[in-house]
């Protein structure tokens, strides 16, 4: 039963080759994204300096700003300079504040990841359990209720949910803090208390998406032919689910989770603005409003990198979980 493939020129197993290919693709994508963010934006009509100055865009002021911000240099050298800096985690200086962008990002990124992380830890198990409940009672009352409620939940904009929660829990009942102020030396419990409302907002929106997808994935597995075979062998529902459904469910559910984590990354932006939370999302939105390009580009690149990484993780887990690839002919 030898693997006759021989592993190609590097002698690697097919599964390793697939994973490396996927890794390579991600880096390629990230590179392409950086090109789009930097060079592609420049290619758009409109001039930075004029839009930046807005009403005060006299020709002299424009020329001054362009020289000051280094916009006169050729695009490719500026791109390579920026990219080189990015690889060493140096994103230049903000046009608005004059401060180091990287220092701000370091602090804010950890804040955002904390927010997203707590939301993820709560929503993932809940979504899987709700998905299982929906499948257990498929097309009966609990499933229909879950379907309608989740359909409504995915239609709610994050800011609506956020303000709703603030109105009730902060203002009317006074049990949750607003705005969500966090600072570096905070203790864990205090921090968790501060982020309770923003986390609740994120969870409510993401859980609806995730639950619908886990329901679909589990339903598809439960209706597979091998589940019928298990039932016809008299195995019993519980053992069949544990022994036959579960191993095949790992890959699709993990993929769903990874995809929704990527969605969470974007949801963080709006929630941070609503709750005035000092994270990457608020940083980016503020920068866009004043057209502080270095900050915008840096934030864009980092968000994209997280998104690409999560999608890649989903793909790689699918590859690893596929028995055909783990045990080739």
């Amino acid at each position, binding site marked *: 039963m030898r693997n006759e493939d021989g592993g190609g020129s590097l002698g690697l197993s097919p599964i390793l080759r697939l994973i490396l290919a996927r890794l390579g693709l991600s880096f390629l994508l990230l590179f392409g994204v950086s090109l789009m*963010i930097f060079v592609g934006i420049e290619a758009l009509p409109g001039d930075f300096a004029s839009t930046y100055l807005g009403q005060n865009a006299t020709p002299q002021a424009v020329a001054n700003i362009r020289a000051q911000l280094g916009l006169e240099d050729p695009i490719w050298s500026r791109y390579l300079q920026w990219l080189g800096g990015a690889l060493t985690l140096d994103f230049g200086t903000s046009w608005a504040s004059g401060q180091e962008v990287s220092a701000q990002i370091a602090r804010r990124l950890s804040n955002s990841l904390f927010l997203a992380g707590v939301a993820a830890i709560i929503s993932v198990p809940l979504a899987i359990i709700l998905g299982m409940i929906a499948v257990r009672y498929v097309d009966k009352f609990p499933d229909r209720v879950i379907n309608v409620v989740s359909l409504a939940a995915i*239609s709610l904009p*994050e800011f609506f949910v956020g*303000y709703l929660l603030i109105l009730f829990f902060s203002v009317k009942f006074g049990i949750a803090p607003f705005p969500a102020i966090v600072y570096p030396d905070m203790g864990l419990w205090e921090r968790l208390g501060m982020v309770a409302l923003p986390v609740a907002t994120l969870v409510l929106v993401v859980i609806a998406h995730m639950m619908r997808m886990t329901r679909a994935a589990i339903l598809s597995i439960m209706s597979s032919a091998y589940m019928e075979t298990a039932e016809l062998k008299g195995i019993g529902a519980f053992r069949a689910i544990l022994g036959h459904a579960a191993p095949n469910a790992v890959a699709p559910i993990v993929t769903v989770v990874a995809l929704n984590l990527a969605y969470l990354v974007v949801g963080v932006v709006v929630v941070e603005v609503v709750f005035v939370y000092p994270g990457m999302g608020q940083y980016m*939105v503020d920068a866009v409003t004043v057209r502080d*390009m270095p900050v915008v580009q840096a934030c864009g690149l980092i968000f994209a990198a997280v998104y690409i990484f999560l999608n890649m993780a989903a793909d790689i887990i699918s590859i690893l979980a596929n028995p055909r690839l783990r045990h080739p002919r």
Partner: protein
Amino acid sequence: MRLRSIPISAWIGMFGIALAFIAALFAPWLAPYGEREIIGAVWEPMSWQHPLGTDNLGRDLLSRLIFGAQTTLFVALGASVLSFTIGIVLSFIAAVTGGWIDQGLSRVNDLMMSIPTLIFALVVLAALPQEIWILILVMAVLDSTRVFRLGRAVALDIAVMDFVEAARLRGEGTSWIIFREILPNALSPLLAEFGLRFAFAVLFLSTLSFLGLGIQPPEADWGGMVRDNNDGIIFGVPAALIPGGAIAALAVCVNIVVDWLLRRTSSLKGGRDG
């Protein structure tokens, strides 16, 4: 299709959508006050003259909501129609022609989809002047990537069927194959997808306006109205929740109708066998 066969939830959904469109089309006749008229104190509570109260400048909230429907719906509709057209045309050409064109378009699409839509929109809007048509164009181009992916999958599913090959063997041209063989069989999933795109456009536009990057004052859409009134939340004034609720209600209605459409197609497929 029998009218009785449509479930209540779908009726409610369609009713909600119709309500929003009627408000949008007949805004000047339906709204009790003007869009920019200041007729009362700031953040007055709901009353007989102002069923929804007033906003942060003392304008009638109900009238602003009706006029806001106009902006929200038309911009969202424009963006989704445009994104749908771009996505479907490109994806069908890619699916039917195959080869380099398909590979090229798919790679470009993958690249554009590797940045989340909101982030991409933020980056692009930071560099462009703030005009409504630019906003629509940006929304359309970014969203068309999702339509492309779905359209290509649907078209490929159909394109591998024997009747498409039979058409090829007859010597039919590409446009015949796309419009007379593939498209009629793709209508159901495409229609549902259009609904989803429209719901997404409404939510996305509102989010952008809420962040201050969408529709600029003095025009207002519902998202912008949330932004205007959000300071009141701390004082317990629910004014910001009303446009927010309108957005949510419209999106829920569209999603309910789309969900019903999707269930109808799948039941038709599975029903007759066995």
